[in-house]
């Protein structure tokens, strides 16, 4: 535990990728494989389900440290992180356990799950007393599932690869699914990650997916496209779907569906199970899961009510409702049926096709889809245009088509690993976000790097147009990203000066600040006071030139819904 806590402290202390790489390599080269197995798991984002309810953890900590509850709360507000707060207020332990990460996780922490409050009250303080402060904070983070440190999966992959003398793409491939809940890291699974290459490795086993190839954002003006990208004819252009990126795998008579978060989601999408019969063994398809159906409401200008409406992609909000459900009843399956918009073929007849050119993969994919003719496997259509300008014009229809813009894939590109550019490039050419000018009405102190700064804001628009006799601000979105550190400090100090009332960590303020808020999608919602839910809201600009009265109204938002 101590060695892992030291690694965590080192990773946390630096912003340099090279220093992080060096720290990880050093750790991996010294740690016993069973400890390294868990370290890889946590560093690449693995999180066991919560082991102890937060309330019990907090109450026990308050009891052990002997502080009044309010004083503990004040401390928590200043720190902005529960695990850190607990580690700061508990008595410092003179001892520190040298036992490894694996015995800690397997013998001490995992068995805590489901224990009664009485047993926890006995065991937890005894565990805490064995750890120095950095190890204690880490231990609590592992217990609450809030372990996070600034390393990407790619960086972990690189550290392992360079230590083991392997190609990092190979390690990335072996790592896929490593953090899935069904997988428990062991010395053997770790040794497999860093083992020397074997000849039959290209033959994927079981339901193992390939690492996803990720796209880069493209924001240059279209006039520069010829210079930047070459002629449009070199590119395969598709719509950018707003759904769940997924790999559909059919091997050994079984079907697996993996999401981009590397979660196995086969059970979440029963309508795709028919693909188990339809697809031949040794097939892996990359695509997007979207809700696909005919729109329900008959619009007023539909002259012929009997004309069948064409099925089309539905807003992500609908898919999201379904993801949130524990059980998938008939109603939700009827309301939000999904299909796979297939756009790539990674494995065909048991052979890894990722190093074949895009165009060749696409051709085979289309042939396959045409052959099996499944209602849940559709080809993501190719968009053709004379040149970039023509494509840019077509892209303007994105919103009405329910897509986020276009994807540009080099025809000769191979299928890369992660967000790399060495094998060819995928660009996402997204449309500009929706935007409105909104008023900041509540602010909350942030966490982590932003602890004790007011950094999380709630925004509102007016319910009536300017000049109305009476109008109020209706909250509709929360946002916390998009400002520079300097701007955030400025906003923080204004919030402090204009605070009207405090509700715990939240302050209501006299409305004085206007921001241009951007978001990707907008939908009706019964759960929000404004009747509207927006997707990925963030601050695009601080409108210091605008007064609160000039902010947008609810009607502006409703117009965007059309």
């Amino acid at each position, binding site marked *: 535990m101590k060695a892992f806590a030291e690694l965590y402290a080192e990773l*946390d*202390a*630096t*912003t340099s990728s090279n220093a992080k790489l060096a720290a990880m390599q050093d750790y991996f080269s010294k740690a016993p494989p069973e400890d390294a197995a868990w370290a890889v798991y946590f560093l690449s984002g693995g999180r066991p389900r919560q082991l102890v309810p937060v309330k019990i953890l907090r109450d026990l900590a308050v009891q052990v*440290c002997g*502080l*009044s509850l*309010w*004083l*503990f709360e*004040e*401390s928590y507000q*200043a*720190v*902005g*992180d529960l695990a*850190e*707060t607990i580690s*700061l*207020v508990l008595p*410092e332990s003179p001892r520190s356990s040298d036992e490894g990460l694996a015995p800690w996780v397997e013998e001490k922490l995992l068995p805590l799950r489901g224990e009664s409050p009485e047993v926890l009250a006995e065991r937890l303080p005894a565990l805490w007393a064995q750890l120095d402060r950095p190890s204690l904070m880490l231990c609590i983070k592992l217990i609450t599932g809030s372990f996070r440190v600034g390393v990407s999966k790619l960086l972990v992959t690189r550290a392992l690869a360079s230590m083991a003398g392997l190609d990092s793409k190979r390690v990335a491939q072996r790592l896929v699914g490593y953090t899935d809940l069904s997988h428990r890291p062991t010395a053997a699974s770790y040794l497999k990650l860093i083992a020397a290459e074997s000849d039959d490795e290209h033959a994927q086993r079981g339901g193992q997916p390939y690492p996803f190839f990720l796209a880069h954002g493209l924001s240059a003006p279209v006039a520069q496209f010829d210079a930047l990208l070459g002629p449009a004819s070199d590119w395969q252009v598709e719509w950018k779907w707003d759904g769940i990126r997924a790999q559909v795998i059919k091997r050994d008579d079984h079907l697996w569906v993996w999401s981009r978060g590397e979660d196995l989601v086969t059970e979440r999408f029963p309508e795709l199970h028919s693909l188990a019969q339809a697809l031949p063994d040794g097939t892996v398809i990359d695509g997007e899961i979207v809700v696909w159906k005919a729109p329900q409401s008959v619009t007023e200008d539909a002259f012929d009510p009997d004309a069948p409406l064409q099925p089309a992609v539905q807003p992500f909000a609908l898919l999201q409702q379904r993801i949130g459900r524990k059980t998938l009843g008939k109603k939700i399956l009827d309301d939000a049926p999904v299909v796979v918009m297939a756009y790539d073929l990674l494995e065909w007849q048991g052979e890894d096709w990722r190093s074949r050119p895009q165009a060749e993969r696409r051709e085979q994919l289309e042939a396959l889809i045409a052959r099996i003719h499944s209602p849940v496997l559709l080809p993501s259509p190719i968009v053709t245009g004379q040149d970039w300008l023509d494509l840019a014009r077509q892209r303007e229809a994105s919103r009405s088509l329910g897509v986020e813009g276009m994807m540009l894939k080099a025809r000769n590109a191979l299928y890369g690993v992660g967000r790399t550019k060495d094998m060819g490039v995928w660009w996402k050419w997204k449309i500009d976000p929706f935007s409105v000018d909104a008023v900041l009405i509540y602010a909350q102190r942030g*966490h*982590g*790097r*932003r*602890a*004790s*700064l007011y950094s999380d804001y709630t925004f509102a628009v007016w319910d009536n147009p300017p000049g109305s006799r009476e109008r109020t601000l209706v909250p509709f979105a929360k946002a916390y990203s998009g400002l520079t*550190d300097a701007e955030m*400090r400025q906003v*923080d*100090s204004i919030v*402090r000066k204009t605070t009207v009332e405090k509700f715990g960590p939240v302050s209501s303020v006299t409305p004085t600040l206007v921001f241009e808020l951007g978001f990707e999608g907008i939908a009706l919602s019964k759960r929000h006071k404004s009747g509207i839910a927006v997707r990925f809201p963030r601050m695009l600009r601080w409108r210091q030139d605008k007064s609160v009265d000039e902010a947008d109204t609810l009607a502006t938002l409703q117009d965007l819904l059309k």
Partner: protein
Amino acid sequence: MDLVIARPEGLYCPPGDFYIDPWRAVERSVITHAHGDHARSGNQHYLAAAPGEGILRSRLGQDINLQTLPYGERLQHHGVTLSFHPAGHVLGSAQVRLEYQGEVWVASGDYKVEPDGTCAPFEPVKCHTFITESTFGLPIYRWQPQAQIFEEINQWWRANIAAGRASVLFCYSFGKAQRILHGIDESLGPILAHGAVEPLNRVYREAGVHLPPTLYAGDFKKNDPIMGQALVIAPPSAGGSSWMRRFGDYSDAFASGWMRLRGTRRRRGVDRGFVLSDHADWPGLLWAIEQTGAERVMVTHGSVAVLVRHLCEQGLDAQGFTTEYGDDEEDLATAVDSGEAAS
């Protein structure tokens, strides 16, 4: 009667007709220590503890109308008996003891309870009413013994020497810088000081405090081989400035009590944060308050509301004093970014 009340100009002693650390210009001022938020220019008359004279004059001007008094010595003014007692915060820092008609008040300014060898150690003074700061008035603030922190700094410096890069340590130039110079292992390598630190070093040396020899950082050019060995002491405001370019590849660190929190440490964006403060930590505040035997406690700058509530729960009569020391409660934590807050 109350010997000290809060007025718009500062903390005021009505029977004595003088102010303690006023933030607006007044006729008579009593100064606890020379940090900018406590000692301001423009007063007609200054009274301070004798060991603070050098610093006060170097900061406020050689020609200020300053009267000094050795620690422990008493002075009568309008029937008020006044004396200074060490606060252990920085060189010359003092608590002000006021006695009038059998009533004793102590205004402590800023204080630290762990002795550090660069100034007279904190001395508890019995009183009826104690005026305390609360900069680190939350139970999350508990300091390690300074020897441990200096050892951490030494280790960091040593590792940087091994890697051939400069060690740039940011800290408040008055007090913290000299405390670090006094505490670190001077045998490890050369020590360079920023132009803001050097004049204060001089005053400390003149006061008989041992500081290792320091070189003026401005005398060295970029790529001077000395950089790979050197410890550089600089104020936080130097960070990110063009002044830093001369150090080439360097590791940076920040020494402050605020570094106790991961969030402030990361916001600072330095490689290392050393938790070293010239203020009392939470146990230090409570210990100091208890030692005075005071039944009434007036709390100034920092976590005023928290400390007041806690002391009231302990059965003391505690109240907050609004002052312009430090800054507002929470601003202090973020003010580290500007490098101006006391730390």
